[in-house]
């Protein structure tokens, strides 16, 4: 399965020899987490909370008390997955394709670990899979959502997107027609996932309306 790369065997070496590299690696990860934490989040976080665990600011006793960042270990699997989704989508929209692809593998794994998959999580996973270049995974999520609910807006939007990625303009057009036809009744259902993705949904409907005129 392209979404899950097999674990590579670790290089063997002495503990002492590896220690400096391990320390450097931890420091690098902390730095990445710090930087990334300042740039993503489903909801804009207050600036002080951008600090990630392991990167606490210096406390010299003169400044305001440090505010701890979100404790990832206390988050639910869904919250962790959603957090990755936000990060990946933000990186992708900023054109940071390499970084987005790097986190995308983690993101897919995070969604696969959820105890239950629903349309919302499948949509998120599908979007991440697109970023990762795993087109079959994305297509599978769209198909599954629509198999379970043929008018689900997130399924239709993902199907449009995957069809475009595949250069299948006929399917994309067909799905846009279905999106336009379904949107009024679907939005009236007030599904929580529609609230979460309202910006993307509005944009997709707007684009579909223009395309099917």
């Amino acid at each position, binding site marked *: 399965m392209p979404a899950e790369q097999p674990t590579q065997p670790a290089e063997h070496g002495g503990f002492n020899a590896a220690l400096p590299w391990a320390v450097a690696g931890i420091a690098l990860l902390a730095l990445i987490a710090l930087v990334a934490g300042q740039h993503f989040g489903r909801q804009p976080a207050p600036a002080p909370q951008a600090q990630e665990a392991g990167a606490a600011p210096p406390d010299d006793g003169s400044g305001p008390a440090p505010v701890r960042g979100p404790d990832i270990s206390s988050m639910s699997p869904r919250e962790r997955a959603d957090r990755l989704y936000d990060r990946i989508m933000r990186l992708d929209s900023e054109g940071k394709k390499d970084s987005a692809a790097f986190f995308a593998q983690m993101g897919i794994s995070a969604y696969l670990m959820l105890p239950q998959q629903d349309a919302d999580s499948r949509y998120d996973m599908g979007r991440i899979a697109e970023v990762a270049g795993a087109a079959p995974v994305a297509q599978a999520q769209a*198909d599954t959502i629509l*198999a379970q609910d043929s008018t689900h807006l997130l399924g239709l939007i993902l199907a449009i997107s995957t069809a475009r990625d595949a250069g299948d303009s006929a399917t994309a057009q067909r799905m846009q027609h279905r999106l336009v036809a379904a949107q009024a009744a679907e939005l009236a259902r007030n599904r929580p996932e529609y609230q979460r993705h309202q910006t993307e949904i509005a944009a997709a409907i707007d684009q579909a309306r223009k395309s099917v005129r």
Partner: protein
Amino acid sequence: MPVRTIHVAHSPDSDDAFMFYALAAGKIDTGDVRYVHELQDIETLNQRALRAELEVTAVSIHAYAHIADRYALLPHGASMGDRYGPRLVARTPLTREQVRGLRIAIPGPLTSAYLALRLYEKDFEPVFTRFDEIEDAVVDGKVDAGLLIHEGQLTFGDRGLHLIVDLGEWWYGETGLPLPLGGNVVRKDLGPALTQRISHDLRASIAYGLQHRAGALDHAMRYARGLDRQRADTFVGMYVNDWTLDYGEAGRRAVRELLARGVQAGVIDREVAVEFVDE
């Protein structure tokens, strides 16, 4: 203990949904194996299996001929037509001779329905069409006839279409065997221990569905594509039958016979070493 994620893919029809109900709904304990379900039409799954993308998937028996080097057939979950199967329909009644040369909508080149029709009549023009669009294609006159799988086998009469041949019935007359349409396969690189585990879980899922028929049918109704509950129950009963828990000797013979005839007819371009997972 680390959790192993296994992708299980099946087609969004009511018999598959019935079989996978317990796994999908978390009704059985699968320990450290987590199953992630994907639902796609059978031809898409056939194509994905060609690329070995999925650990466990439903495929057409015809498609299995092309993936036998990388997948083995699980002993459970087969869809066998016991004197029924894919149905060739048209807007007007036709004889067998009149089928020759027609443009016929087919659900995919790797489907067992396509293979069976080729064995029934080798000379026709296939028009590959999504399975759920075939009935419309026939009604609208885009094709001369259509080969229906899934629930369409029960509903074509509602739209005024005529049955030309039931390929399961024809196959039984030819061989005395059920027509093997679909099966579940497991990728061989998972190794014997995990394969056994998956096989056990799938059997448990089917057994649970059979023991809790009402709940499983409720779940399956989501994929019944317009069938009322009674018809959906009938459809599930057609394909969740004695062969579902195990192919048995007749089922295994039927698989080998279908593929061997496919090779003889030139539809399949290679001899197929059929491999079943033994429990």
